[in-house]
C-alpha cells in the first residue's frame, strides 16, 4: 500500500529531543491517533510547534499534560491552563509567535525562502531582537524560516502516494507543515485508492508526504 505503514512504526521514528510540528487549530485537525501514539511511546524533551495547545485533554494538549515537552512554539496558549502552570514552574519554555507569522515562517522553510518581511509585530515585544527592513516607506520585521525534524499532519482522504484532501477546518496548518520537516507523517481519516482524489483537488501533493498511517476513522 505505497507509503502506508503501521502506527507504531511511524511514531518510533520520533526521537526524544526532536522538534515536531503538529497541524491543527484548537484540536481540530490535530492528528489525534498519532498524538496518542506519541504520548504512549514515552518520547520526551520534545519541542512542539503547533498553532496552540488545544483544550485540556484534547489533541496536542495531551503532550503538555504528559509533560513530554521541553519547549512550545505557538500563537495561543490561553485555553490550556497546563501550559501556564508548567511555564510558571520553569518546566516548559514557551515562544509566542503571531499566527500569520507562524504560518509564513513555516512556509519559508518549506519553500526555500530565507525569510519574509511582515508588518505584524512591528513596535511590539515580538520585534525584539529582530531585524527591521524598510520597503516603500513602511517598516517590516524580517522573520526567518522555522523548520522541524518531523511533521505530523491530519488529512481526511489520503491515497497511498500520500496525496491529501482536507475536510472542513481541519486544514489550517496541516498543508504548510507538510512542506517544512525532514520527515512528514500523515494520519488519514480514510485511506483511499490512487485516483480517488481528482488531481485538481489534491491539496498536499504526495511528494511531500513520507509516511501514511490510518487514523481512528479508517
Amino acid at each position, binding site marked *: 500500500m505505497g507509503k502506508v505503514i503501521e502506527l507504531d512504526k511511524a511514531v518510533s521514528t520520533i526521537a526524544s529531543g526532536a522538534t515536531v510540528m503538529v497541524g491543527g*487549530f*484548537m*484540536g*481540530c485537525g490535530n492528528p*489525534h491517533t498519532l498524538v496518542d501514539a506519541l504520548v504512549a511511546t514515552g518520547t520526551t524533551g520534545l519541542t512542539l510547534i503547533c*498553532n*496552540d495547545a*488545544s*483544550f*485540556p*485533554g*484534547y489533541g496536542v494538549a495531551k503532550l503538555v499534560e504528559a509533560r513530554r515537552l521541553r519547549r512550545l512554539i*505557538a*500563537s*495561543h*496558549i*490561553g*485555553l490550556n491552563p497546563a501550559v*501556564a502552570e508548567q*511555564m510558571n514552574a520553569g518546566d516548559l519554555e*514557551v515562544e*509566542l509567535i*503571531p*499566527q*500569520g*507569522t*507562524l*504560518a*509564513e515562517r513555516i*512556509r519559508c522553510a518549506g519553500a526555500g525562502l530565507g525569510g519574509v518581511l*511582515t*508588518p*505584524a*509585530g*512591528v*513596535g*511590539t*515585544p*515580538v520585534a525584539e531582537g529582530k531585524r527591521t527592513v524598510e520597503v516603500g516607506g513602511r517598516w517590516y520585521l524580517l522573520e526567518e524560516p522555522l523548520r522541524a525534524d518531523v511533521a505530523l499532519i491530519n488529512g*481526511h482522504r489520503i491515497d497511498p502516494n500520500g496525496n491529501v484532501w*482536507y*475536510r*472542513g*477546518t*481541519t*486544514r*489550517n*496548518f*496541516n*498543508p*504548510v507543515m507538510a512542506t517544512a520537516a525532514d520527515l512528514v507523517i500523515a494520519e488519514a481519516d480514510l485511506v483511499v485508492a490512487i485516483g480517488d482524489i481528482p488531481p485538481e483537488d489534491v*491539496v498536499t501533493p504526495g511528494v511531500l508526504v513520507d509516511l501514511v498511517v490510518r487514523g*481512528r476513522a479508517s
Partner: protein
Amino acid sequence: MMPVTMDRNLVRETIARRVAAQLRDGDFVNLGIGLPTLVPGYLPAGVDVILESENGIVGAGPDPGAGDAREARAGTGQAAGARYVVNAGGQPAACRAGGAFIDSVTSFGLIRGGHMDATVLGALQVDQEGNLANWIIPGRMVPGMGGAMDLVVGARKVIVAMEHTQRGRPKILKRCTLPLTATGCVDLIVTELGVLAVTGGTLVLKEINPACTVDEVLAATGAEVVVADPLGNMLAPAPAPAPAPASAPAMETGYRSAR
C-alpha cells in the same frame, strides 16, 4: 466612576448593535472572540456580511447543531464538539453556502493583504495614538496574540468593541501601559458610552449614548478627547456609508482599491 448603571447584557447589546450599524452589506469581516461575536445578531435588515474565521473559513456561519457532521470529542470530558468545522474559538461552526475552507497561510494572506473590510476586536487598552494592547498582562495573563497582530495591521478598518472602563478604571488612555498588539492601528472605538474615532493622533468623540453626559464620558476616559460638533447619538447613528455591492460594475461606482 462608571457614569451610568447599565445591565451587563444591555452594555454588550449596545456595543454590538452600534458596531453592526458600521458594517456595509457584503463586507468581509473578522470578529474576535467574546463580545464581537454578538455583532451579526444586530445587523440591520438587508445587511449581510461575509465572516472570516481565521482558522480557515470564508463565510462562517453559526454552529449547525447536533447532527451527522458532529462527533464527540473522543477522550475528553467536554461536550461534543464539531469534529470537522470549528471557528477561531475552537467552537463548532459552519461554512455557509458559497463560502470556502482555506488553510492558515491563505487565511493570513487575506488578513494581512488588505482584503478584509474590517476587523472587530476587544481590547485591554487603547490610546489616543490608535495604539492597541489586547494580548498580554505580564505576569498575570499570557494567552498569546493568536491572530490579533496580523488582523489589526491588515484589515482596512480596525474597530475596537469594548466596555468603556475596567472595574471603573479607564481603558482609553493617553498612552497604553501594557505591551502593544500594534501601533497606530485603531480606527474606531465603540463602547457602551460612545463612539470615538482616531484621527491623526487625536481621539474624537463622534457619538454619545444619550443615557450619559459628555462630562461623564470624558471622566471615564484617560485620554485627550475632542468632542465632535454636532455630536451624534450612538443609539440612532447616521446610516453607514453606502455599500459597494459586489455586483456593481467598477466603472459605475468606482471600485474600491485595496489599501
